[in-house]
């Protein structure tokens, strides 16, 4: 059984490679990522776990971009105030983005960092890709 260690324990993490999860445009331009499990992560993380992470992220983005009564109300109210209301109020999308950032940090700490992986918040890559950095596995003692 491989030793588990957090990223803080690694003295100088060396990046082995990076995997980029692309966007899934099959339902239009809404923000959705492909749930296909990349082969590079096969030895590192459980497929089920990975798909659950991506699916949760997709659900959070869907919540942010949902067209419904609440978003219409926000839009109309903002229009009536010539959008000055956003100087004091956060938009619904920004609130969900904070939730997403917290979720990504959580997942990194609990699941991915102990396995030598790091998920970058997609907003830092322009919501184009989910970048997963694969670090060299020091516990095995050889580069991947």
């Amino acid at each position, binding site marked *: 059984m491989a030793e588990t260690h957090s990223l803080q324990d690694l003295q100088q993490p060396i990046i082995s490679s*990076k995997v*980029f999860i692309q966007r899934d445009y*099959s339902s239009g331009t809404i923000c959705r990522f492909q749930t296909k499990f990349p082969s590079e992560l096969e030895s590192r993380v459980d497929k089920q776990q990975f798909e659950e992470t991506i699916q949760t992220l997709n659900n959070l983005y869907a919540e942010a971009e949902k067209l419904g009564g609440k978003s219409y109300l926000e*839009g109309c109210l903002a229009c009536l105030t010539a959008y000055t209301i956003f100087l004091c109020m956060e938009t619904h*999308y*920004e609130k969900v983005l904070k939730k997403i950032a917290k979720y990504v940090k959580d997942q990194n700490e609990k699941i991915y960092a102990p396995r030598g992986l790091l998920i970058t918040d997609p907003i830092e*890559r322009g919501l*184009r890709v989910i970048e997963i950095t694969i670090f060299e596995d020091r516990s095995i003692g050889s580069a991947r």
Partner: protein
Amino acid sequence: MSAVMITRKVRKWEKLPGKNTFCCDGRVMMARQKGVFYLTLFLIVGTCSLFFAFECPYLAVHLSPAIPVFAVLLFLFVMAMLLRTSFSDPGVLPRALPEEATFIEMEIEAANGNVPAGQRPPPRIRNVQINNQIVKLKYCYTCKIFRPPRASHCSICDNCVDRFDHHCPWVGNCVGKRNYRYFYLFTLSLSLLTIYIFTFDIVHVVMRSVDKGFLNTLKETPGTYPLNSDHRVLVCFFTLWSVVGLTGFHTYLISLNQTTNEDIKGSWSGKNRVQNPYSHKNIIKNCCEVLCGPTYPSVLDRRGLMQDDLPVSTTSAALSSSSSSNPVPQTTKTTAPLIPNEHTPDDAKPSIAASAQTSPSRKRSTLPSCRPWLHPRLMLKHPSPRTRPISCMRGRLTFVAPP
């Protein structure tokens, strides 16, 4: 023999590629050419000032004080929408970082297989199916990404913009996903303001003529003749048709959930049974999505802080040793194309890919742009100072000693 690296914190907007200008420490983002935008401001503010100065006192007294009050509110709304359209990020997509660009290139190479020498490599297109419609995603050679659906590269601003509508010189910015609704509200409110001023200019002339006779009205205001309401009526008349026409055109586009770019290219004109996959097939739902949908945040993070490493040489003796010691990866590699393309010799490709992965601290500013012969737009592009290889600095840099 060691180099001193001065690390300073800079805002990310200072290092963004593209041809935008930034003001107020990254809060304001516009295109480089702003002349026509200043003209727009002048025309709106000028016409409204004259209306408030000459017509409003008369109309407030003889008709109702609500008339100038409503005009002021409408004017403020127009200005707010104009400034919001001009100053906000239209939905610029950040360029791919080296690792992502390499990853995409390797995927393309794998998909294309072996291209015989002398033959053109196939065009870089990805097909996706959206609502039972095949949509082709094109590769952007400048940004090194496959453009999302409805995104397009603006050559004036040199950025890929999401849901690109058009580049508007009147507002001095691109119109894209993030600022389209402000642009539409600007044209709509400007049409209303123009109609309002036009109507009350005529009412003013009619009322004065009724009071004193038409010719006497003209005689009465000799000092202000060049600025009187008759001239303004003419200006408003011509402005009206263009602005109202534009508003009407965009109302039509919104009801069909199309962009100006798609309309010009005829993407969903119905030839070969292509239908717009983004339309909800319901006018009200389309309008609601475009105008009242969620407000998308900017993905650029213009005001975020980043490290900027400036190398400073220490001694002149170090200069002679720089040629014999190991080459500094950052400077020597920037003269070669980062991404292997059809011009890269085969033996250089693996080393380039490997070095791209092991230099995580490489700044975007040293990334040379790839200029394949396929992309005519790039033939005319001047290399920006950031993408020019920094070979002039090689002589002054010394070898960075490992810790």
